[in-house]
């Protein structure tokens, strides 16, 4: 049992940290947020091109690097640190869902290859009004997908649909006839959403009927949870770093405000939350491939713990910054809006907590 990163993992972490600091933070994020797109195409091109980052955990047969979700988690955390405005999280979630044991490998292959080719993929795994018609070969979908993360930039979406014979995953090309993607203005300026309307839209059924389909849908949701957990840890870590730095510099009453013990103790509590989240996300990202039987409990648990840590840290960050913390020009609000939006989209922390309680057999 070894909890520390190996050399390759540390290299990946360092490379990404350097890349983000130089090319994908500060003004890049702010510009993407202000432009109303929440998307930096140049950063995406570099991440998916020379760095081949979205193919990290994809089978080499489809052009990927064949790494585990641990490596994906490292990348998510590093991009999360600056809320880098690229659809990495949804794309790797789609990739990992497509590579799952209950997914039809032959049908998934072209979609995986589009991802390693640089395409943006996204997922829509919540409840929706979409229903399928037609046989496996020529199936079409009708209905609406709401709150599709990074939907405005995506080439295709992996969607969970309630079929007559149980839950199923479908791949939907967003350029197809019968598909309308409507970009939404979002509270979280660094991650936009789309509403996707399907009218006899063609789609690829990716899962078999019955329990296997349900398992594939469930696993996709769990991957999404773990991905959000890893990203939240990166964002939380950076937000706390910024805050601690500010407290060491800002002078009031003749001394740096970070020397006031009440603020120190609050920072200490935030650090405890961050460390807890860090351990949880690391464990969860190992569980994805290393102990998948634990995933149904660990996944929502990790999303809850890491999401709460981010929300707590981002919220306190504003308060600890004082007046400057609630201005548009300061970054604090990006973290805060990301934290709260992610929680709201999950059904709320109380929903996640109940899910864990049910799966752990407590309630």
């Amino acid at each position: 049992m070894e909890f520390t990163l190996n050399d390759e993992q540390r290299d990946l972490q360092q490379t990404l940290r350097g890349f983000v600091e130089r090319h994908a933070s500060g003004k890049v994020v702010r510009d993407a947020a202000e432009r109303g797109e929440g998307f930096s195409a140049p950063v995406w091109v570099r991440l998916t091109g020379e760095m081949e980052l979205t193919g990290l955990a994809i089978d080499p047969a489809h052009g990927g690097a064949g790494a585990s979700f641990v490596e994906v988690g490292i990348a998510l955390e590093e991009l999360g640190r600056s809320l880098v405005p690229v659809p990495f999280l949804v794309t790797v979630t789609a990739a990992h869902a497509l590579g799952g044991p209950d997914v039809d490998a032959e049908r998934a292959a072209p979609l995986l290859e589009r991802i390693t080719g640089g395409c943006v993929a996204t997922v829509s795994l919540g409840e929706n009004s979409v229903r399928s018609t037609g046989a496996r070969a020529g199936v079409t979908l009708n209905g609406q997908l709401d709150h599709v993360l990074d939907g405005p930039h995506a080439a295709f979406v992996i969607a969970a649909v309630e079929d007559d014979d149980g839950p199923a995953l479908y791949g939907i090309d967003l350029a197809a006839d019968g598909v309308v993607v409507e970009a939404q203005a979002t509270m979280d300026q660094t991650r936009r959403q789309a509403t996707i309307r399907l009218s006899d839209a063609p789609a690829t059924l990716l899962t078999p009927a019955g329990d296997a389909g349900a398992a594939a849908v469930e696993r996709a949701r769990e991957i999404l949870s773990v991905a959000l957990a890893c990203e939240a840890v990166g964002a939380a870590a950076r937000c706390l770093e910024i805050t601690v730095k500010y407290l060491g510099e800002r002078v009031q009453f003749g001394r740096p405000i970070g020397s006031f013990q009440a603020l120190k103790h609050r920072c200490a509590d935030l650090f405890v939350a961050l460390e807890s989240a860090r351990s949880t996300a690391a464990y969860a990202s190992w569980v994805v491939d290393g102990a998948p039987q634990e995933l149904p409990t660990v996944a929502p648990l990790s999303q809850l713990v890491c999401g709460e840590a981010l929300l707590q840290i981002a919220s306190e960050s504003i308060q600890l910054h004082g007046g400057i913390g609630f201005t548009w020009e300061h970054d604090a609000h990006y973290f805060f809006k990301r934290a709260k939006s992610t929680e709201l989209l999950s059904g709320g922390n109380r929903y996640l907590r109940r899910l864990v309680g049910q799966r752990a057999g407590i309630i």
Partner: protein
Amino acid sequence: MDLSVTAEDEAFRAEVREWLAQNLRGEFEQLRGAGGSGREHEAIELRTEWEQALGAAGWIGLGLPQSVGGRGATLMQQVIFAEEYARADAPGRVNHMGEYLLAPTLVAFGSEELQRRFLPGVLKGEEMWCQGYSEPGAGSDLAGVRTKAVLKDGSWSIEGQKVWTSLAFHADWCFVIARTEPDSERHRGLSYLLVPMDQEGVDIRPIVQITGSSEFSEVFFDDARTEARYVVGEPGDGWRVAMGTLGFERGVATLAQQVGFQRELDQVIADARESGTVEDPQIAERLVQAWIELRVMRYQALRTLGTNEPAAASVSKLLWANWHRRLGELGIDVRGAAATVLPAEPYELTREQAVFLYTRADTIYAGSNEIQRNILAERVLGLPRG
């Protein structure tokens, strides 16, 4: 201890209610709900006209002595007016700085000459005021003021920068705390100056907030001028004058604010019913807790009404700021995922999104939570300074 309401007070309440019903109509009808925290930019011109109508009817300066043109109303009458005003959803006051901070300060510390010059403008709703206290380097630490003023050619010349000034664009005057004794430190050597805003030496730049809107401004003074006699209290005595101002009428304003809070909470409860989230036991519990705490804030405001202790002011601020911030969170939790999407670009917010985001400021401005806790611990509980 007797909390019964007198017949005279009931009669006064009826009078206020009747006047509001007769006057908040016609073109003023659209002002219901306009203005207030986070929405100060709404309908400023019409609100200014409304304010003049209030002034003409004698509803401004209710608590000021009749000798200076006020109405000399009792504390309870002031509460009744403020509550009824809020209950009618009448618009946020453009000149609350003038009425609730400047006017009582002039009455308490100003010369007769200054009172004659400035009180009528406030009482008629014709001269609007903004506040010049906070500075970039002195947010929580008011005694750290660095804005300077010197007498030059018979007038004050002011150099420096103020921040978090609300409604600066619409103000005719600003009351400014400036250091008038060059090498003075902390609380000493400050003066309370009255400075006209419409001059070359004053530059106003809006501060965009987390909400994307701009209620506050930075105000830059670069050889801004005001007459030598426009200083309230003695030169050098500005700290005492400013501190005197902070406590005025707090209880009245607090009770009125709670009427608005109750309306906001009722709306959140209605939203929870509409969205079905009221069935969620955790949401239900938070709704009830919010209702309970608002009642407690009322009992607290009633018990401390008319007292002017730092304890009451700090307790009140901590209670309402934290309550309101939690209400903001509850308001969007009740909406769920739908609350992540805005009604329109660029960054237009729903009511509950605006409250959620704006209330992050409530625990920071006008004495942050941290400052209030310092005051309670040191000045009220007497714990030793660090």
